[in-house]
């Protein structure tokens, strides 16, 4: 009897079972309070289910009681690494509703600061990406260069991260007298330092082994999930708002839209590194040609948008941010909706990570460059 049981156990293959584990909400490489429910078969990922809501602050609802000037500062708290672009999106939307003519000076300054914000965001992403894959060094190097940009922001805008430098109609103050010199100094400095990024990480054999062919996203999937920004462009989806729907001063600058067709982690990585080169090119074209003029168009103290619906999109460091305002001619919007890039990019995580190992999920998430408050709002 006992022997018989032992024999059947040997004959049948050992049974495997799918199981769940939680990644997050407190996990160093989810970069915030994101909870991922992973369905695993051994170490292979079968399914990734993101659970949101841990940092929901109902920003959209708060906007319904705030005046248009006050809404701007709330958008700092969505994607804090591209706060200037978020501010700009709201301001452009309000200006579109008021049909306000914006001084040329404002457009150029907004563009320069947007590109600086994009640079600083990508520097931080580069540092953190290295750290996620086990290289602490890159974190320190990325922050070293980012520090110069935050100093520029601190001097001109008054804050290092949540700057709130835009107001509907223009800017809060004029640029600081040192702004141009500091920015030019930074560009000369960073031109020399950017090759270091390649030496340290891009060509590193451990890094390339862990990113090439990992987290594949096809162009069709990128389009159907609405993956925008460098992540979408690395799959061959031409989606740069700055090129297709130019706003501010992007119509007069010459830059390349970075497109890669591989759609793996390494392509997304390269797309961002190349974007840093392009951002510097844009800044160089504009920094010496800031037109004279006012830094703010005249607006009423209480802004009321005419009844109707307004939509404005901008390209943040993570992708396309859309602001949709429904106005009923009151001093706050009837409804305001943000189409945030992080939310759509995260939705594609399941198909990107399927079939990879758990450790690859960390690399995939890193190259998506998620900012959790942007996803939850």
């Amino acid at each position, binding site marked *: 009897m006992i022997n018989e049981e032992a024999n059947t156990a040997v004959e049948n293959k050992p049974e495997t079972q799918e199981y769940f584990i939680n990644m997050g909400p407190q996990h160093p490489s989810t970069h915030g309070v994101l909870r991922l429910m992973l369905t695993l078969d051994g170490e292979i990922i079968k399914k990734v289910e993101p659970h949101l809501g841990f940092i929901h602050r109902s920003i959209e609802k708060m906007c319904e009681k705030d005046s248009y000037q006050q809404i701007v*500062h*709330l958008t700092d708290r969505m994607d804090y690494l591209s706060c200037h672009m978020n501010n700009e999106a709201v301001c452009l939307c309000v200006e579109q509703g008021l049909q306000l003519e914006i001084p040329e000076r404002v457009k150029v300054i907004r563009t320069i600061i947007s590109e600086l914000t994009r640079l600083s965001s990508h520097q931080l992403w580069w540092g953190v990406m290295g750290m996620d894959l086990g290289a602490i060094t890159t974190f320190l190097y990325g922050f070293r260069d980012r520090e110069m940009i935050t100093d520029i922001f601190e001097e001109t805008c*008054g804050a290092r991260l*949540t700057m*709130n430098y835009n107001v509907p109609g223009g800017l809060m103050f004029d640029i600081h007298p040192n702004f141009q010199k500091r920015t030019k100094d930074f560009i000369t400095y960073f031109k020399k330092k950017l090759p270091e990024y390649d030496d340290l990480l891009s*060509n590193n054999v451990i890094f390339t082994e862990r990113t090439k062919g990992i987290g594949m996203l096809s162009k069709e999937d990128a389009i159907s999930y609405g993956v925008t920004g460098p992540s979408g462009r690395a799959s061959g989806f031409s989606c740069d708002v700055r090129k297709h729907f130019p706003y501010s001063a992007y119509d007069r600058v010459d830059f390349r839209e970075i497109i890669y067709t591989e759609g793996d982690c390494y392509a997304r990585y390269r797309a961002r590194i190349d974007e840093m080169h392009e951002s510097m090119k844009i800044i160089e074209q504009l920094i010496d040609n800031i037109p004279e003029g006012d830094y703010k168009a005249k607006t009423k103290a209480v802004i009321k948008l005419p009844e109707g619906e307004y939509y404005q999109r901008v390209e943040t460091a993570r992708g396309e941010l859309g602001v949709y305002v429904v106005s009923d001619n009151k001093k706050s919007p009837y409804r305001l909706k943000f189409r945030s890039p992080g939310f759509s990019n995260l939705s594609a995580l399941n198909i990107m990570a399927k079939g990879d190992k758990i450790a690859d999920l960390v690399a995939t998430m890193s190259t998506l460059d998620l900012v959790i408050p942007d996803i939850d709002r």
Partner: protein
Amino acid sequence: MGLKKYISDIFYGVKSLITGMKVTGHYFVRPKEIITQQYPENRESLKMFDRFRGEVVLIHDENNMHKCTGCSACELACPNGSIEIISDKVIDPETGKSTKVIDKFVYHLSMCTFCNLCILSCPTDAIKMAQNFEHSVFDRSELTKVLNKPGSKIMPGIR
């Protein structure tokens, strides 16, 4: 073929690691080109940027006079209720008219998002942003401040 690729991969790998080490080595032997910074302990000599937004303060001159009329424009401009203006009506002994003066300018530093809207909205430029950046305290009640100093008065001529 397989062996050749195997060996060239090893060489490529070692080379890429050495390239990276060269960068870190460069900074290792040149400690002057620092990567990290010390925390600014030199609080007396430290010069912050003028526009840096540390906290809202009410400007007082040497005679303990301020410019706040108690008009509440800043309270209305604030998106999150960080400012409360508690004002009084006093009868001017000379003209007999009643005027508004502030009793307390309450500022909740713990709720402030440093958006600068209150400063922009003040018609008399009575408030400004101070540059101090160390706000930690042991009890959160200490973060609720009364900005007008005891015994302070409004500057003459400000209406």
